[in-house]
């Protein structure tokens, strides 16, 4: 699977850079979430944004994975 992803990474990285700005907007609420439940809220917002890429399967899956990575970090860093 890794090898397959590597083949596509060059194509995907360009598109990823374009959505980087959008993602950066998502980072802000994730990082500033201080209360319990805010990580869930940020995740829901991120998934909502990802749905916009639903028909671009590769991009959608990448987006979803990075939403999940944001959730994992949010839980680790901000919640006891």
């Amino acid at each position: 699977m890794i090898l397959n992803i590597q083949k596509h990474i060059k194509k995907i990285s360009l598109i990823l850079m374009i959505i980087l700005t959008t993602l950066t907007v998502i980072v802000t609420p994730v990082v500033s979430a201080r209360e319990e439940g805010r990580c869930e809220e940020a995740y829901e917002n991120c998934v909502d944004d990802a749905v916009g890429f639903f028909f671009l399967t590769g991009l959608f899956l990448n987006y979803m994975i990075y939403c999940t990575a944001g959730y994992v970090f949010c839980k680790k860093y901000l919640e006891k």
Partner: protein
Amino acid sequence: MISKKVIFLTFLLAIFCCAPFLFSKKEPKKIQLEEVLSIGKLDDDTLFQWVGVAVDSNEFIYVTDAMDYSLKKFDAQGNLLKKEGRKGGGPGEFTALRYLGNSEQFLYVTDQYKPEVQVFDKDLTYQRSIIIPVPIVDIKILSDDEIAVSTIVEAQLGKIFIFDSKGKAKREFQYSDKKLPLMMDVVSFDFDLKGNLYLAYSFQDKIEKFDPKQKKLWSKKLLGMKEVKREKIATFVLPTKYLYKDVALDSSGNLFVLGGSYSKNQSRDVYVLNPEGKLLTTFTLPDTSHCIYIDHQDFLYSRANEGITLKKFKMKYADS
């Protein structure tokens, strides 16, 4: 002749008697923390929200500061020597700074929304980027040609991926033997000098050790939990609380595990296991932390003031 034999036997006896003390590893029954350094205060702008820390053999301390979009270098006294980086998507720039690994020569910095690891020299000068095509949950630098990362996988077996300096997947270290629901095989990990892998599951009550041939040596539950609470969030069912947040090894091979939400003192309790997986002791950090780091001199680093402060502790080992 007899006296030589007597001397030789006495010598052997002395070696035999002293061996446990000469060759035994430090196996503490109790650990007390003594704060030796504190970097960043609530009323200064040294650190804003640090995430990753690494200490080199010259005792320089390197920190990623997510809210300041920068990589920072401090001396052993905690003086800020240099700061590099800014917000952006270019080389040497950051969007969501995360973890930090170091080798003798370089620093390896992860960014949550960039599929790469940025490499800096010890003067914080950007060198190059290595494409890593998976989101990085934890990173350990085994050498400049072996970058180990744990990631999030779905409908696959949990694996640690080891990439070379060009970003090519060199090998995989499979640690789970069955496919698990999303996020349930997220782990923090560390390798000892012999290549044994230690890992703590973030959302399962499981701490494990594998030998370099990927054979599981032991598996431990410290919290006595059978099932972890999961909730439906945006059509996905996800775990909502961490069990174990981070792991680190000391120079004697003891494993330090930072507990999460289910520990008595949330995100403060640290469990210490010997290399055979026996729980030796538990101690509590003065403040909640997302990570623990142990340097080559066995000083422990953790967070305070929600990421504004980095604390360094001397660990005082007691036998009783």
